[in-house]
């Protein structure tokens, strides 16, 4: 027996907003991502020029050498707008919280060999500053980007980097019994230890890049392309035989996040490279430069943690970045 519920049927006069219907090619129902993203950013009739940089407009396509006929050719494959973003991250964080809880309750960090614990303090904890640098770069590129679609992924990424910087900081507090001494040491390492200076210099150089698209490529493709596999896969594997299971659990957030980043980034690069040979050339040039730099900068840390196997690992990582970029139409 079927149940028929009579409702007061009132025909809607239109399905969505006019600018959304225009992009869809017809007046039909739109997704929340589409309605919340397309055409939000003003494009014309600005009233004043920035007093902090009068050479440009408030929203300005010329802040990058990349040229797009339509800055909404790119859409986030994850379809993340604010609501779905916070829910997705909360879900990831709930899992991470239960890891922290379990590790504390079971005193799991005690299983780590003293050597590995020391290594973790040296390679992982200073990475909180790398994450803070990534926050700054994603915030910067989000600020200057043209169009809501691209600006949005940058802002979400910036907040994520703060989140990961805080997770790493909590790992430190876990290891130093909430005294904070491990974080003080990590700061000193970041500022002074030899193995970190190549990285810090690279990050600071990326802070002052003029072209926001180059900044996005440098940070999110090249540097992250090294960091996420190196720290959360290769270093993680190295720790497995030294009682590093607790770290493996806590790495889960970052591992999942790294995969999530690739989804939008690879799509952005693909769409942008496919637009024109000039775009592809710019992207390739940047990717080549910054991949070289990133591999070089992180090699000392890789050697410190992995010893002899480090150089081979770095080559493998470089090859992965190259292959991945190629799939997006970028030649490194």
């Amino acid at each position: 027996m079927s149940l028929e519920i009579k409702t007061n049927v009132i025909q809607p006069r239109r399905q969505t907003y006019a600018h959304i219907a225009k992009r869809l090619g017809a007046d039909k129902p739109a997704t929340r991502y589409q309605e919340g993203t397309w055409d939000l950013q003003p494009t014309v009739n600005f009233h004043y020029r920035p007093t902090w940089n009068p050479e440009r407009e408030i929203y300005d396509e010329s802040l990058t050498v990349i040229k797009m006929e339509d800055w909404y050719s790119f859409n986030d494959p994850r379809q993340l707008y604010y609501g779905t973003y916070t829910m997705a991250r909360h879900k990831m964080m709930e899992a991470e919280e239960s890891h922290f809880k379990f590790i504390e309750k079971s005193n799991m960090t005690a299983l780590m060999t003293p050597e590995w614990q020391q290594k973790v303090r040296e390679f992982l904890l200073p990475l909180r500053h790398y994450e803070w640098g990534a926050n700054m770069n994603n915030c910067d590129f989000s600020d200057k980007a043209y169009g809501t679609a691209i600006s949005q992924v940058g802002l979400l990424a910036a907040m994520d980097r703060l989140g990961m910087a805080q997770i790493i900081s909590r790992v430190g507090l876990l290891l130093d019994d909430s005294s904070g001494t491990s974080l003080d040491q990590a700061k000193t390492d970041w500022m002074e230890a030899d193995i970190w200076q190549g990285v810090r210099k690279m990050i600071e150089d990326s802070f002052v890049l003029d072209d926001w698209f180059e900044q996005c490529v440098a940070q999110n493709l090249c540097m992250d392309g090294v960091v996420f596999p190196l720290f959360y896969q290769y270093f993680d594997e190295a720790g497995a035989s030294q009682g590093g299971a607790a770290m493996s659990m806590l790495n889960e957030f970052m591992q999942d996040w790294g995969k999530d980043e690739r989804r939008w980034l690879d799509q952005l690069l693909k769409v942008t490279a496919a637009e024109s040979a000039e775009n592809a050339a710019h992207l390739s040039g940047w990717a080549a430069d910054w991949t070289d730099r990133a591999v070089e900068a992180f090699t000392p840390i890789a050697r410190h943690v992995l010893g002899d196997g480090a150089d081979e690992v770095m080559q493998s990582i470089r090859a992965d970045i190259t292959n991945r970029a190629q799939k997006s139409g970028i030649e490194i």
Partner: protein
Amino acid sequence: MALKRKKKLGIKQRYSMLTRGLDWETTYQPMDKVFPYDNYEGIIIHDWDGWQDPFRLTMDAYWKFQSEKEKKLYAVIDSFAQNNGHLGITDARYVNAIKLFLTGVSPLEYQAARGFTHVGRQFRGVGPRVACQMQAIDELRHVQTQIHSMSHYNKYFDGLHSSPHMHDRVWYLSVPKSFFDDARTAGPFEFVTSISFAFEYVLTNLLFVPFMSGAAFNGDMATVTFGFSAQSDEARHMTLGLEVIKFMLEQDERNIPIVQRWMDKWFWRGNRVLALVGMMMDYMLPKRVMSWREAWDIYFTEAGGALFQDLARYGIRPPKYADIATKEAEHISHQTWHTFYNYSKAAAFHTWVPEKEELDWLSEKYPDTFDKYYRPRLEYLDKEEKAGRRFYNDTLPMLCQVCQIPMLFTEMDDPTTISFRSSDYNGDTYHTCSDGCKDIFDFEPAKYVQSWLPVHQIYQGNCGGAGIEDVLKWYNLNLGADNLEYKGSPDQKLWDEWQAHRKKA
């Protein structure tokens, strides 16, 4: 997020380690190159560590609380759509308040998201950067939840279909657009003074409470829900605004006159934008919450009074022309509505003469001004309309160079005289609507002469063509649907149909 695991670290200390300690003084690149924009406004900061974090929200807590709010909010939005919630409003005249909101205010939320992203990178102190970034993403939340909530209204009512397009072009929308462009193009310290302090602290309640209470009183559940949900974010924004001010004032006493000037400027620009809200409260809501005058008394005079007493110890005084704004509260809603009534051909919302009971309410709420200056005019317009001569003004108004509102405000001590000021700059004469706007112009004339004034642009032929219909099409206005008198509009006809249908069923 269990802060109770270890009581070793207090909330302040833990937050400090998880946030403040992340930053560092760059050495491979000079700090001034990494932070090129936070030094030129004359604001002196000796010690960024003096910044007190207003709320200590780590990202895990942020994602947790915000996702919970979003789940609840979207459940209501879905339910509203499913149950034809739009039928529950008092009557379709109410929707014009939403049209004003979606085209005038929502785009400002997006600008705020981008503006806070900018200062979230450009301040050299890590504490303010984090607070500003959180605000940036909150503002993204606001614009998107507003677009999503009002999506359902767009399906049934006119005037909601092209908010971004209209915001960038339509004459009255240059009022909020120029307001925020002004803030965006100012330096980072002025930006936070204008938005975080003046807008989000001093004046915010005068924007949100009228709209949200108006929604509650008029059966608009979607807006009430998103409004309250957004307001919980606003509490954090207000605290940022207050902290920013105190920080600047405490760092160096040379900051005081700069901050005072910004307060004066942004109080006045904000007050001008709020004229649209005053009009909404007094004229657009079929069921009225309180008068603009009453809202001003509670949310500015009373609340602002306590605030400025607190700031007095820094040498800050209440904003210049606060007394004028207070006098204006008796008049501006009536003057503004009358202007929109005139220009209803060119607006993307309807206007009308209030019903008799509504006129009586206005008489009661404005005993010193309404019957004397405004009621007779409205009764005349009503008579004309009934005689088949609904009045539409076919000329274009002169706009104030700064706030870009038509020159409709009168001298507060003589409501029969238009308030009119002028300034000369580089051989040209510029016009402003008040001493407040004139002061703003005179301090930075090179900035305000850049204004994209809609009426000037129309006359220069930059807005679609020589005729008014060309311009309205360029605005993407649906002629005969989005504009004109409420009575006889498609919105009204449909509303009556739906009500009749409900009674039958």
